[in-house]
């Protein structure tokens, strides 16, 4: 190819490139203005959380320790006690160390009462190592079973 041919091919490629960037210039941005707009995280598998059942308004953890045994990262710590006049245990402590959790979901699969689930939180950040331990019972307050309000 002679000089003129090469110049022609090069010039045409430049115009093609300008066309590509020009097309993107007039399209809508694909990014979000993060703190003001948040992404749809409804299908996101975030840190493990306790499910709230509509019928009881609380979780259904019976402190069976199945999740503790199955956890490959050994990051779950559960304690419980039996409310008076009940056959089932209730959890009094449910900690997951998120710094070692690999979100494998085995605890969710193994849970006999189906009370574990992935949350949709995606922007967790903390300053100290102890903060990485999530207290799953923290948001529940007083347990209605242990207080004797539900049986």
């Amino acid at each position: 190819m002679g000089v003129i041919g090469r110049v022609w091919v090069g010039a045409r490629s430049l115009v093609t490139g300008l066309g590509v960037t020009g097309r993107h210039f007039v399209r809508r941005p694909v990014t979000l203005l993060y703190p003001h707009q948040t992404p749809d995280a409804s299908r996101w598998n975030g840190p493990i959380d306790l499910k709230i059942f509509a019928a009881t308004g609380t979780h259904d953890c019976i402190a069976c320790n199945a999740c503790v045994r199955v956890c490959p990262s050994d990051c779950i710590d559960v304690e419980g006690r039996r409310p008076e006049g009940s056959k089932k245990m209730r959890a009094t402590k449910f900690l997951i160390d998120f710094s070692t959790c690999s979100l494998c979901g085995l605890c969710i699969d193994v849970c006999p009462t189906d009370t574990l689930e992935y949350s949709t939180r995606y922007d967790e950040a903390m300053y100290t190592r102890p903060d990485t331990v999530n207290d799953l019972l923290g948001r529940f307050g007083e347990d209605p079973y242990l207080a004797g309000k539900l049986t």
Partner: protein
Amino acid sequence: MSALQGWLAGYITWTLATLLLGTVVIMGFLTFNTLFLIWLERKVSAHIQRRYGPMEVGPHGALQTVADMLKLLGKQLLTPVATDRFVYLAAPFLIFLPTLCVASLIPVSGAEAFAQMPYGLIVIIALSGFTVIAIFMAGWSSNNKYAVLGGMRSVSQVIAYEIPILLAALSVVMLAGSMNLREIVAAQARGVPYLLVQPVAALLYFIGITAETNRAPFDIPEAESELVGGFHTEYSGMRFALFFFAEYTNMLVLGALGATLFLGGWLGPWLPGPVWLLLKAYALVFVMMWMRWTFPRLRFDQLMTFAWKLLIPVALVNLVVTALLVSGAG
């Protein structure tokens, strides 16, 4: 009487005060222009990459560059130990002064912006070649290998690309029969914009000013991946800002000169002349930004080959053909 002087003469009659005030007005406008162009550059780059760009400070981030400027004003001015001190301190001002002079020579509507000059075109081209000295001064005096390399690259690049600019402008001068920018615009008012008569010269001029202002794909003097910051590596705070200021002022001024030479300058319906000139200049600047975010940087030998083996021969042929046609018609 230049446009600004004529406007000011309605209020004050003392010549020195007119000069000072006119300088202040031009400096104010150029500062505003720099802030606007940096904001525009960030917005253009963002939207080409499907992002939003600055959005937080002011509506659509319009005050972001003002905040940046205030930050730069507050920064400490660092001077490296082994610099050539006088040259190092003089370079930021010397790079800025020619662009200020050139800005005052562009005709805005029937009269030059601030200074009158019968051969405006040749003065403008001479003055804009002056910035290369300041760039080399900055690179040499910084006592930094990257800065020296950036400065040397800048010299060889600007010298190479001045020639096609000059030859492209010369073919316009031949058509208009004058080096006076007002005459050139007046000649386009009688006929058509020279873009239609001289498309090759217009293209050569545009490529030339892109290289002259060190813009991508010709931003080799400050190629950040190879040379850190190029010639302004060792400059900080407001001294660095002056280099930025000069670059964006140069873009506008050479864009306005291109608009004058090829797009009919201040001519246009409905709107007043200065608005038309600015619109055309900003359109050219926008294309330069568009190119920056599209094309990869040239290698240095490709850059030189492009200028000496392609642009200059094409410009010469274009000049000879123009000369033949003009003398044939005349």
